């Protein structure tokens, strides 16, 4: 439940916060180039940024790069200093491990790290390259790195649905979200086809689905950053960047239709589906059963479910909707009324009146559908 009351922090908590802030201030900055497939040009963008920074006088060094290099990458590498990786063999496989000790001795201001999703061989200090990067950041060195959507741990189910396989080497999404900056490296499908050449067939549908996922992941990360920025600057949250749909459930409304439509709308808009109901006392056994079934459906549809309290249900819904930056409220028609109620004020009327800055979508009552 969102609470407006901020608890006064204890002295220990305050100290912990200050220490965390200090650690954060000492830590290097992380910038990630996110791509949707190999050959979109992530490594190029990364090295090109390194070159430009170096030309502007920044101390930039390459910590890891994937060989063999294409001619355009080779041209960029000629302009950049490199700390060679350590070649290790384990189980008959060749590994290229970032030489963190040499990097710490050289201690550049900015380190370029290609292929963030890389497993180090057993026996290395960190099993994963992103953990090496984490240590490097803690030592006050900024890192610019590149990674593909297919290698994000939390995206593996979606990736498998699209490509039929999961990535062996992954980076947790939280590490991506902890980045100070994320840049999406987009490429048109015609360019991807050209880069693949004639020998390799290009699955346009597969590439498009991965591209869509990458764009949306980047949008989500940026939305988090926007909210943090607005909060830390005391700016009121605003409407506009994302569709957020709130389905209001009551025991009598056709929650199934509303929830399914809400899910479909949220998916189409790449938005968020929220569900709320205002706690009521004295529900009949049958009503409670319906509510439980509706809640189960809401959870199955991966909605965020919130229980609200308040004597005035409309006021509680509106308060919650504004807090959550809701753009559309879905609500059921009031039960079919007797004719004389044509002029009566129904809860739906009150909601329409109250929600002047939010769209209200009213759904047919099950008995009239």
């Amino acid at each position, binding site marked *: 439940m969102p609470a407006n009351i901020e608890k006064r922090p204890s002295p220990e908590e305050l100290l912990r916060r200050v220490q965390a802030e200090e650690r954060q201030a000492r830590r290097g900055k992380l*910038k990630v180039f996110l791509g949707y497939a190999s050959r979109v040009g992530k490594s190029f963008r990364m090295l090109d940024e390194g070159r430009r920074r170096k030309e502007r006088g920044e101390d930039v060094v390459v910590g890891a790069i994937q060989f063999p290099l294409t001619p355009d990458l080779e041209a960029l590498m000629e302009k950049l200093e490199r700390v060679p990786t350590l070649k290790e063999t384990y189980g008959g496989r060749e590994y290229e491990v970032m030489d963190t000790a040499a990097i710490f001795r050289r201690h550049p201001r900015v380190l370029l790290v290609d292929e963030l999703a890389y497993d180090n061989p057993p026996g290395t200090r960190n099993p994963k390259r992103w953990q090496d990067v984490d240590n490097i950041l803690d030592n006050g060195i900024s890192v610019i790195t590149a990674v593909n959507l297919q290698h994000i741990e939390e995206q593996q189910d*979606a990736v498998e649905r699209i490509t039929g396989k999961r990535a062996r080497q992954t980076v947790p999404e939280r590490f991506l979200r902890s980045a100070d*900056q*994320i840049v*999406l490296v*987009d*490429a*048109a*499908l*015609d360019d991807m*086809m*050209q880069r693949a050449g*004639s020998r390799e067939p290009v699955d*346009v*549908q597969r590439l*498009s*689905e991965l*591209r*869509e996922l990458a*764009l*949306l992941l*980047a*949008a989500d990360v*940026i939305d988090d*950053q*926007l909210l943090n*920025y*607005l909060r830390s600057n005391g700016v009121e949250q*605003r*409407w*506009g*960047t*994302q569709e957020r749909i709130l389905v209001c459930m009551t025991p009598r409304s056709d929650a199934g239709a509303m929830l399914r*439509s809400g*899910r479909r*709308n949220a*998916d*189409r808009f*790449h938005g968020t589906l929220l569900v709320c109901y205002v706690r009521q006392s004295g529900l009949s056994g049958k009503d409670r059963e319906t509510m439980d079934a509706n809640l189960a459906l809401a959870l*199955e*549809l*991966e909605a965020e479910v919130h229980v609200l309290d308040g004597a005035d249900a409309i006021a509680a819904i509106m308060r919650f909707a504004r807090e959550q930056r809701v753009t*559309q409220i879905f609500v059921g*028609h009031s039960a079919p009324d007797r004719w004389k109620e044509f*002029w009566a004020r129904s809860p739906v*009327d*009150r909601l*329409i*009146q109250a929600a*002047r*800055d939010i*769209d*209200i*979508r*009213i*759904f*047919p*009552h099950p008995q*009239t*559908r």
Partner: protein
Amino acid sequence: MSDSASSLKTDAVGGTRKGRLKIFLGYAAGVGKTYQMLDEAQELRRKGVDVVVGYFEPHGRQDTIAKTEGLEFIPRRKIEYRGSVFEEMDVDAVLRRGPAVCLVDEFAHTNVPGCAGLKRWEDVQALLNAGIDVLTTLNVQHLESLNDEVWHITGVRVRETVPDWVVDAADEVVLVDLTAEALQNRLHRGVVYTADKAKKAMENFFTESNLTALRELALRHTAHEVEGRLSDLAAKARRAPAARPGAEPPVRHERILICLTERPSSAVLIRRGKRVADYLHADCLAVHVERSPNRRDDERKAALEKHLTFARNLHIDTHVLHGANVARTIVDFARQQNITQIYLGRSGASSLSKLMGSTVHRVVRLARDREITVVAERFR
């Protein structure tokens, strides 16, 4: 552009191939759209493709100007208007020259009166119809469907807009991404604008929160464009795109009806209804009900006509009906047209007492079997 790619989306019109349109989409001036477009033009030139520049806006940016080296420019057309001389793309000259690929900067630009096309995107249509491939640049805030969102975020009402169908019809939309911080650094270094203009820009439009929000819109819109092409593809291949478990397939075809009045808020209503229709792949209709056919009120009629034209420009099917009972006429029309969702403005229902008895109130009561959306007033 490769030959294999042209099989993605081809329109053969009377034997001549329609040109391919590629849009470099950004979220603000200075993110590097024109640079990337020129980079691609240079690549094409190296491969021996016949590429020309139809219109290029240098903005005094040295990096960008350097990128045009060796490219052929079609001289601009000079047009005198109200005592000043303006320069626009010379569409006829480009057509006479007949290149394989033409670069046209700033897709959303409005031409000075006296040009063949009102808008540059209309000039681009002429090039495409002549079989010329076009590379162009566009910022997300110029999309018609996002006009209210952009106003809400930035406080700026963008006047130069491009209807979404024009962008949806492009063969490729590529996002040119840059962090807001990097863009602000560019402004500081004077790469984008001159020093005093840059300072003013950063105090107004180019604030970190504005830029971040616009950037998010650009990412989401590009995802929407990718998704649109994907569903065209899936429809062709009869292969459903990956669906979320639990979400049922669409059970019915959605048809959205927007109820227009002469009120200024109708513009918001049209954009909102059309945006939802586009995202749901729904049909979109608009209706206006005239209460008395002989009522003479020229001002009101002109306002209404403006909204109807606006709706038609967005490819909305418009209808004007007559009926003494507005709500009844709307609901009857909705039933007859198999409308699934009715979109209404708040029509000044600012207080509960005004809402009671209003068209909104009546339609909600009469159309219990339809979905009804009462569209928000977008405040700032």
